[in-house]
């Protein structure tokens, strides 16, 4: 079911949730209200690092209008000595992240929460809570946190036998790097740094929660997984999952960071104590200060190659900032950095480093852009030194089908070369570039590639035929970027009916089977696969019904263009029965038509991307502007090309922000100094050009429509591609991000 004659798959259909979103009717998390609802605020630590000796909430509780106060003693404790995992999240850290327990670990760390008749009273009550802090020395940067005399965040955490801020390691190894480097004609080793960046979704975290008298809980919130909200809330409050109905609101961006909870368990506890529905909405300041971000990094990458460009050895050491609690995405740089290349000797090591900043959360291809920044810049330097075209060098070293990936599996298809070739032959790469267009202005071109694993996992899809012969599809995945539109295309195609007859919606935790997070570029892959299985089952039911009506076997019937047709020997013997006619007869022929399929999907092949960028540098002001950007990626099959291109374009522009302007700034007291959209500088419309997506479609043989996954890979190459372009413009290499005007100016002043 995947070819150019498809009627709906591959079409730019109108998304099912579109009209609501352009008219302001779509309900996001902060748009929901309940009768009798009260409002909650969080009290947050004013210190970057402090032991909590005691909390006195009596004055706050006595304030008129206050209905409930919650502290860490109300949250289920997960003792430090025993790990309890939910997916990749350790509940020991989650329980301490939603509410500080022994210590406040970063400025903005929640220490108490108040629910009151309105936000003003709740805020006034927060100010009356007395916290007895023992202020401790803090540490923010990786370089400082790994020093032997660094302030230690978690005394119980040992590394090499001593208390340490290194909370975990990951090592991947193949061959013998020392032997490999000895065989190389050229070896280059460089150290790179990058700053934490926020996912920057425009919708702040928010929820409305009702804890009813019978102990049943309804949660209305936006997340990348209502089942994650249910499970984490259950674990942190003790309410059984069967009592929690988590209803997914429309989500105003997540990019990975809404794969964990911040507010929901606290709101449940406040609602339980107060007996009232509770609404909690973060301010932008709270979002920037206390949620996300993606980690900063300190990476050293060493690559050795022969004169002809063959890479013989590669070594990467990646220190990632976990924030206050363990759990940085080491798997990103350690596993992805060298994965696209066939290298006989590789040693890739990651260190998870805690420091007094907010706990990191997933951000689009978590960690992979940091590894690619280092690796793809070193590759560029090697190609330059050997006088090779950087794309030709990548082609020469591309991994192949049958190679063992450094992260474990043997590659099936590898479609990396196709992405490199498509840039190599693209008019952009061949276009002349005037490198000195005017005095004080320099231009340059850079390329880089990227890899992401992609993912399958659990997904549930219901397909129900309405009595009037139309279709309602329910999935269990929040739709962050148009997945409902893709599913509508698939189901309309399989059923052979007009797209407008298919409605797709997202079920809550009590109306649809378990479905894992929207993340890792998995949702369109997994839900299209399960929607296909579900729709095929329904087609089977429809054929059975037609068979009963005609008195022939269902096997002797085919489904085509929305109709059951007698086939084989019976061809032409009966007039076709349409979906509408079969639906009208459903009850007399065996009951309602519909089904739910639940699968743990597999077969998500990796994603590869190669990018090309032209930049212009204002030498006097240090401003780097992106002039032209082309991004090639193999997506397998674009079920809805508009939203596939959108994923690529959006990922690239986030990468541009990461490379050029975004960073967390801290003051000397360890407080975030730029917790606003004014000072945390994400790209605005006038900062960027059109982004040209080259959508390559080599169908994934393990997926019914050929889907691979799209969303993550586009953010992997931009950091290095832009750094390589800036080098081409200025003749100087940048080993630190962001390449913001002050840093570029500083570097230009160095010899």
């Amino acid at each position, binding site marked *: 079911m995947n070819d150019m004659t498809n009627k709906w798959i591959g079409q730019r259909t109108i998304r099912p949730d579109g009209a609501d979103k352009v*008219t302001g*009717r779509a309900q996001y998390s902060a748009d929901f209200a309940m009768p009798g609802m009260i409002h909650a605020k969080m009290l947050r630590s004013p210190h970057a690092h402090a032991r909590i000796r005691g909390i006195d909430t009596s004055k706050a509780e006595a304030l008129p209008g206050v209905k409930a106060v919650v502290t860490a003693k109300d949250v289920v404790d997960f003792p430090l000595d025993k790990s309890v995992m939910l997916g990749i999240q350790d509940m020991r850290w989650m329980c301490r992240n939603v509410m500080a327990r022994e210590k406040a670990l970063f400025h903005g760390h929640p220490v108490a929460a108040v629910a009151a008749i309105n936000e003003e009273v709740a805020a006034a009550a927060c100010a009356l809570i007395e916290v007895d802090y023992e202020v401790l020395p803090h540490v923010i940067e990786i370089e400082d946190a790994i020093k032997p005399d660094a302030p230690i965040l978690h005394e119980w955490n040992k590394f090499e036998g001593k208390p340490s801020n290194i909370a975990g390691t990951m090592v991947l190894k193949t061959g013998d790097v020392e032997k490999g480097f000895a065989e190389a004609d050229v070896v280059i080793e460089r150290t790179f740094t990058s700053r934490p960046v926020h996912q920057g979704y425009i919708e702040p975290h928010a929820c409305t929660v009702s804890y009813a008298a019978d102990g049943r809980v309804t949660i209305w919130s936006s997340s990348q997984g209502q089942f994650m909200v249910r499970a984490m809330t259950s674990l942190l409050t003790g309410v059984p999952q069967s009592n929690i109905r988590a209803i997914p609101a429309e989500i*105003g961006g997540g990019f990975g960071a809404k794969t964990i909870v911040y507010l929901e368990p606290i709101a449940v506890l406040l609602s339980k104590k107060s007996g009232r529905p509770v609404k909690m909405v973060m301010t932008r300041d709270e979002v920037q200060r206390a949620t996300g971000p993606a980690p900063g990094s300190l990476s050293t990458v060493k690559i050795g190659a022969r004169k002809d460009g063959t890479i013989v050895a590669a070594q990467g050491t990646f220190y990632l900032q976990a924030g206050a609690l363990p759990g940085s995405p080491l798997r990103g740089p350690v596993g992805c950095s060298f994965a696209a290349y066939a290298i006989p000797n590789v040693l890739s090591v990651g260190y998870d480093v805690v420091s007094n900043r907010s706990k990191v959360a997933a951000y689009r291809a978590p960690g992979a852009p940091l590894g690619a920044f280092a690796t793809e810049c070193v590759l560029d330097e090697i190609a330059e030194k050997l006088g090779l075209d950087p794309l030709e060098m990548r082609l020469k070293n591309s991994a192949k089908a049958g190679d063992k990936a450094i992260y474990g599996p043997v590659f099936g298809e590898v479609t990396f070369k196709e992405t490199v070739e498509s840039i190599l032959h693209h008019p952009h790469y061949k276009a002349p570039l005037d490198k000195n267009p005017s005095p004080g202005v320099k231009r340059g071109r850079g390329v880089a590639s990227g890899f992401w694993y992609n993912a399958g996992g659990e997904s549930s899809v219901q397909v129900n035929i309405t009595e009037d012969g139309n279709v309602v599809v329910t999935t269990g995945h929040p739709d962050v970027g148009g997945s409902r539109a893709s599913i509508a295309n698939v189901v309309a195609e399989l059923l052979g009916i007009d797209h407008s007859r298919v409605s797709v919606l997202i079920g809550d935790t009590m109306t649809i089977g378990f479905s894992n997070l929207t993340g890792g570029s998995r949702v369109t892959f997994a839900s299209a696969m399960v929607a296909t299985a579900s729709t095929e089952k329904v087609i089977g039911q429809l054929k059975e019904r037609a068979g009963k009506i005609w008195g022939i076997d269902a096997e002797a019937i085919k489904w085509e263009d929305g109709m059951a047709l007698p086939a084989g020997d019976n061809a032409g013997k009966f007039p076709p029965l349409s979906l509408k006619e079969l639906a009208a007869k459903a009850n007399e022929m065996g009951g309602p038509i519909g089904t739910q399929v639940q699968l743990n999907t597999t077969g998500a092949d990796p994603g590869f991307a190669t990018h090309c960028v032209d930049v212009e540098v204002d030498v006097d002001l240090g401003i780097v502007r992106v002039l032209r950007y082309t991004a090639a990626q193999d997506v397998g099959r674009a079920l809805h090309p*508009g*939203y596939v291109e959108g994923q690529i374009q959006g990922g690239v522009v986030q990468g541009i922000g990461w490379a050029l302007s975004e960073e967390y700034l801290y003051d000397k007291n360890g407080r975030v100094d730029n917790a606003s*959209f004014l000072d945390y500088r994400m790209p605005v*419309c006038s900062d960027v050009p059109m982004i040209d997506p080259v959508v390559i479609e080599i169908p994934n043989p393990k997926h019914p429509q050929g889907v691979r996954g799209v969303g993550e890979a586009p953010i992997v190459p931009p950091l290095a591609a832009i750094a390589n372009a800036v080098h081409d413009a200025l003749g100087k290499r940048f080993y630190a991000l962001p390449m913001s005007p002050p840093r570029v100016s500083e570097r230009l002043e160095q010899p």
Partner: protein
Amino acid sequence: MSKIHVSTSVNGEPVEFLCDASASMLDALRGPLGLTGTKEGCGTGDCGACSITVDGRLVCSCLMLAVEAEGHEIATIEGMAQGETLHPLQRKFLEMAALQCGICTPGVLISARALLEKNPDPTEEEVRFGLAGNLCRCTGYDKIVRAVLETAAEMRETVR
């Protein structure tokens, strides 16, 4: 402190509401007026998700006091379509996939309409600067800019 009574017009209809002296126009829209299509992304005038027009002028409703609405004409996203007929910008945004999560979309549409009212034939650069006050984190702006340019071309055709 007692509430202040405000009489104003929202999307062409006369309305009255009560608010605190400190309440923003955004609070009034999303609270007593029940118009949650206008979004709060930052509350400091940096993201444009709360864009509305006041007597045709584009403003961030989070930076305007609710009491300032007295006697003025407020327009929000809820008034952009006429019944079942979408505004050409709304229709074009859907046709060209110029939204992903959609949280910035109401503000972007209000800004884009204000831009086209002033400048029916903008260049790409003028669109980019016209929308520079509206953060979008999903789309990378490409499809938004194209949709605004195409709508402008279509609307000029219709006028002719």
